[in-house]
């Protein structure tokens, strides 16, 4: 465990070098949130509608805010690093080290989670509470949200790992990254809530794992995911996806490193 924490603290120090980066991430996210905010506001004012697809304007504003923050938090920033190490053969060095490669990368990506939380998400929440009066903050479900985010982060870590490790087979990863990004951004509910999808598409999205990255945690937070049992089932499903993906990640890793000796690394 100790050695993995070293990877974490090492990366923390690197990330903390570029402090202007955090400020700019705050600005970027303010812009992205505002773009959605104005669009929704225009939609609700269209006909003086109070509810669209089961959301009031206030709920929609909260959805935009929280989903943006969740999406930001689950970024692992590790896919290009893994892909590069596989493509350039640097990964061979890691095979002779007494550390688990994926676990090492996981701890490195935790550094981004921690810094993004402290220096981007917390300031954004403070900004949001100044500009949008939300009423009682305590009436929302913070604890299941936190659990959901943590699980989503680990699930997304495996997506990142897959998109890097796939380089063992495809050599280049531009295409898979592209595919992954578009799948996640739409089917996770980050662009719009899944309630806006037509029925057939909503059904497809509900079978796939992507919605547990953003949509589920945010709906739980808003209290729109149903009663206690429904929430428990959603979190359990997230856990099952997580178990499946970690097994698949291990399989991919074991297959992949066998490939490396064929190619001569």
């Amino acid at each position, binding site marked *: 465990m100790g050695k993995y924490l070293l990877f974490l603290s090492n990366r923390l120090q690197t990330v903390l070098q*570029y402090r*202007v*980066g955090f*400020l*700019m*991430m705050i*600005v*970027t996210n303010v*812009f*992205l949130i*505002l*773009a959605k905010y*104005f*669009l929704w*506001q*225009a*939609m609700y*004012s*269209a*006909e003086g*509608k109070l509810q*669209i*697809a089961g959301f009031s304007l206030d709920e929609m504003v909260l959805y935009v805010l929280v989903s943006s923050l969740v999406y930001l938090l689950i970024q692992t920033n590790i896919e290009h690093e893994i892909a590069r190490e596989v493509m350039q053969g640097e990964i061979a060095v890691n095979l002779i080290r007494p550390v688990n490669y994926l676990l090492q990368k996981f701890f490195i990506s935790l550094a981004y989670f921690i810094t993004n939380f402290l220096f981007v998400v917390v300031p954004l929440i403070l900004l949001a509470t100044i500009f949008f009066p939300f009423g009682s903050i305590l009436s929302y479900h913070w604890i299941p949200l936190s659990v959901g985010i943590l699980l989503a982060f680990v699930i997304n870590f495996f997506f990142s790992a897959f998109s890097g490790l796939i380089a063992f*087979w*495809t*050599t*280049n*990863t*531009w*295409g*898979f*990254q*592209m*595919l*992954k*990004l*578009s*799948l996640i*951004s*739409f089917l996770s509910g980050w*662009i*719009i809530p899944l309630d*806006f*999808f*037509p029925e057939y598409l909503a059904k497809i999205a509900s079978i796939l794992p992507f919605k547990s990255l953003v949509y589920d945690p945010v709906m739980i937070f808003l209290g729109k995911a149903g009663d206690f049992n429904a929430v428990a089932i959603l979190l359990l499903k997230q856990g099952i996806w997580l178990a499946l993906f970690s097994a698949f990640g291990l399989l991919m890793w074991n297959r992949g490193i066998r490939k490396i000796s064929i190619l001569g690394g």
Partner: protein
Amino acid sequence: MKILIHYLDLTLFFGKLHLNKLIEYRSDFIMGVAGFLLDSTMSVATVFFLFNFVPQIQGWSLYQILFIFGFSLIPKGIDYLFTDYTWELSRRLIQRGEFSKYLTRPINPLFYMLSERFFHPDGIGGIISGIVLLFLSATHLNLTADPLRWIVFLSLIPFCMFIYFSIKLIFASIAFWTTVSMPSLSAVMSLADFVKYPLDIYSHAMRFLLTWIIPFAFTAYFPTLFLFTGEWYYPMMTVVISISTTALAFFIWNKGVENFESTGT
């Protein structure tokens, strides 16, 4: 003239080179194309999904919005096709000292740098989906603007593209002084997200920002407004803004290259 032909030749040569690099990894390339198709279909579909719930947004109909959206994809796509490598300038070319390579050959350094990623497939896809969308929405709207208006409207495309490129180049060139400028570049470029929708759904401050500070509004909204209304002020301003941002971008780029040479980094 001779120089121009020489550079056209080089463009084709470098473009083929980059495209071949991507196509060589066949399975990855196919996934990338699939990802791209999914991405553009879904972003258009999102607009349709929204209009399932409201008949118009701030007085704009579905096809009017799709028209603006479609047009915005064309200059953006052309820009993507030729200048995507600007991002690397902000990300790593200065930081890792790789930039000096571009000063060692008898080609314009800016051209040489950009040539690393000519003919990026995302760009081609963007242009095609833009044209399809424009055509589709134009037939639905029964646009009966006179041919002269159409000619002026379409000839604004290169000017829009240069607005796009020069904003990107200005913020990437900051890296010449700060070594990395990617976070500020992504903050500014996230504003481009706003132009898919009509400018008048945004607040006054936002409109001012997008018109006069970071003039993305001139890359889609104002040209389309000209086509719809025939107000000559819009295309004239588009040209003026385009020429001045381009001049500013080249000025800052040149200063940056000078600065880079004098420090010898």
